[in-house]
């Protein structure tokens, strides 16, 4: 089978870098696209060619189907890899790619459309004998029948966007009087993020665990699963920490859910890499189909680390017509993998997004440590796009080993200039509840200590002393208060330090 000679990556950030790396390792020529704020971004530097989309807002850049397809055709690409988010699950984009003679690296437009409609995808799950959570028909702004729908489902309930994922357009509603404001806000957010403002109501299952199964299907219909990922550490319904294997599954539940995942993929006529998401009721052990994601997932690296398999390589091979050359029995995981998403956000301020210039970005390294990053030191982090900067992934022979490795990695990862959730991640991994493995999606909400500013003044006091000495040695000499010195103007850092502490 002949692979593509050139592929355009229609994305930005860490996933664009991730996809470009694999394509290059496969000997495929690569093209990137970029919006104005990303002209210095790592994915631009990495690709063999990079094309400006001209503009800043997502709608006029990474979501502009016409611009992107025209660039792909012009540069002679044979296929387009959409990454996740943006156009990854936009059936019109995949259809237009095909119509323009490009291979879309992902499932067919029909499958994307089916799975993107959360109602139709649930029907497909029911037909495949997969258990589902009760939900309502679609609601759109201006419609009023949500009262009846909510009466049927009962409170608390979830408002969810028909399209997309990543927690956008999702709200928990406790009381009937909050229903319409939540519907309207969720609908607006969904329209902005996915270009589709339809939302619906779903029964809310508290104390649930979020467990998903990776599947891989080729054009002959051969469908296998690549085991599960546990994704229950979430804030704003968005995953923060993922691991495999899930501490919540015993072998019998794992086998049942895996069979459901494969049945679901087959029912949807799925090809390429996809993920079947389930809620697991921590109390009863029951599980429910949530949705199937027709794209590569953010958290795919934990699967790659335990199976020693490159997901992007298989996406590309399957899209080029190759058949999967291993069987379900070959899927034998080794050890345990853990991923932490590093977000530009303030854990002490309700995870509010943060922007700024990355003054320092010093990723850790060592055995079993992997960083999938879309940023570089000196880069400006803007409010235009998603706040995820990178993913830190570790592998260990067992869960305890990877927890230890993750903690060491997180604690030796200096980042300055942009507020990140790194201090939160350290506390979460250190938390007894996380370490016990017995946690659910309420983990962050119920453990306030994870998001309270540090109480001990030992660290902040030391930081203050360092800052004082640095300020005096660097700032005073050149700055005199206002009109700050540029970094080049600053005198050596040794000035102002007691001699005894010199290196």
């Amino acid at each position, binding site marked *: 089978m002949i692979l593509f000679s050139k592929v355009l990556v229609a994305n930005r950030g860490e996933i664009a870098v991730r996809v470009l790396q694999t394509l290059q390792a496969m000997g495929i020529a690569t093209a990137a696209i970029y919006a104005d704020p990303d002209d210095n971004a790592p994915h631009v530097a990495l690709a063999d060619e990079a094309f400006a989309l001209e503009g800043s807002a997502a709608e006029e850049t990474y979501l502009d189907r016409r611009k992107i397809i025209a660039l792909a055709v012009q540069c002679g690409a044979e296929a387009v890899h959409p990454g996740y988010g943006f156009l990854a699950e936009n059936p019109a984009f995949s259809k237009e790619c095909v119509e323009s003679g490009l291979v879309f690296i992902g499932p067919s437009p029909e499958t994307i459309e089916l799975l993107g409609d959360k109602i139709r995808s649930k029907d497909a799950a029911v037909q495949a004998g997969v258990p589902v959570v009760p939900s309502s028909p679609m609601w759109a702004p201006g419609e009023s029948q949500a009262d009846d729908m909510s009466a049927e489902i009962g409170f608390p309930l979830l408002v969810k966007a028909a399209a997309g994922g990543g927690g*956008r357009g999702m709200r928990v509603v406790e009381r009937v009087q909050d229903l319409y404001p939540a519907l309207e*806000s969720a609908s*607006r*957010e969904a329209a*902005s993020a996915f270009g589709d403002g339809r939302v619906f109501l779903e029964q809310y299952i508290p104390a649930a665990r979020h467990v998903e199964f990776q599947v891989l299907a080729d054009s002959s219909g051969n469908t296998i699963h690549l085991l599960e990922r546990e994704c229950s550490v979430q804030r*704003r319904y968005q995953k923060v920490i993922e691991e495999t294997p899930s501490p919540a599954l015993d072998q019998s539940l794992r086998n049942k859910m895996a069979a459901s995942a494969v049945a679901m993929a087959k029912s949807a006529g799925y090809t390429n890499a996809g993920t079947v998401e389930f809620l697991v009721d921590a109390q009863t052990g029951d599980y429910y189909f949530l949705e199937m994601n027709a794209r590569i997932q953010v958290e795919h690296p934990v699967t790659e680390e335990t199976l020693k398999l490159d997901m992007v390589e298989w996406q590309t091979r399957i899209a080029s017509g190759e058949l999967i050359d291993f069987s379900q029995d070959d899927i034998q995981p080794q050890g345990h993998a853990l991923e932490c998403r590093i977000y530009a956000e303030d854990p*002490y*301020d309700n995870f*509010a*997004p943060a*922007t700024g210039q990355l*003054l*320092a970005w*010093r990723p850790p390294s060592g055995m079993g440590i992997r960083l999938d990053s879309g940023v570089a030191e000196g880069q400006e982090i803007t*409010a235009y*796009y*998603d706040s995820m900067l990178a993913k830190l992934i570790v592998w260990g022979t067992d869960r305890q080993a990877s927890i230890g490795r993750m903690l060491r990695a*997180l*604690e*030796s*990862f*200096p*980042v*300055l200039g942009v*507020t*990140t959730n*790194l*201090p939160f991640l*350290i506390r979460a991994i250190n938390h007894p509840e996380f370490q016990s493995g017995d946690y659910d999606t309420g983990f962050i909400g119920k453990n306030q200590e994870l998001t309270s*500013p*540090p109480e001990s*003044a*030992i*660290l*902040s*006091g*030391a*930081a*203050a*002393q*360092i*800052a*004082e000495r*640095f*300020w*005096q040695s*660097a*700032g005073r000499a050149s700055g005199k*208060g*206002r009109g*700050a010195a540029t970094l080049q103007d*600053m005198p*050596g*850092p*040794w000035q102002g*330090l*007691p001699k005894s*502490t*010199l*290196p």
Partner: protein
Amino acid sequence: MTTRRLQQLHPPGSGEGNLSPSAEMIEAPASDGAEIEVKLSSPSRWEGSVQLHDGRTVPFLAHRYGQQVHVWISGESYVFSPPTPIARARRSGQQASDDIVSPVPGVVITVHVAADDTVTAGQDLVIVESMKTEQIVKSPRDGVVQRVSVEEGDRVDKGMRLVVLVPEVGE
């Protein structure tokens, strides 16, 4: 050795002097006077290790950005700056500003209030979208909107004024 104490801008400390939801300024915590030992590992940058008062030796990295000093130390990051007039005013007990500021950088997508509106604590004032997520700015207290400083579609920085609130008069 310090002659003028820098202020900690981030993370927020234990309560004292909240300037706004987004820009807490507190006095840098006193370190009981005793100097800590700082060892630099690079001749050209402020990085190395420091021995804490609890005996641990931990890594640190410091960086200057304009009027700010950013310090990473053992997994936590701090931002300091020289005292500003407004922060000094706060500490000396003057009344808080009635500026309602944006908690995040982003774009104003909805303005729920107009000048002279009476608002109650918890009421939605403005919605700012940042990084594809909506942030709802609510009124911190009962009052009257004196001025709305933004329009829908405006780009705002974190800490930028959205609405000016004054206490309700009469009744």
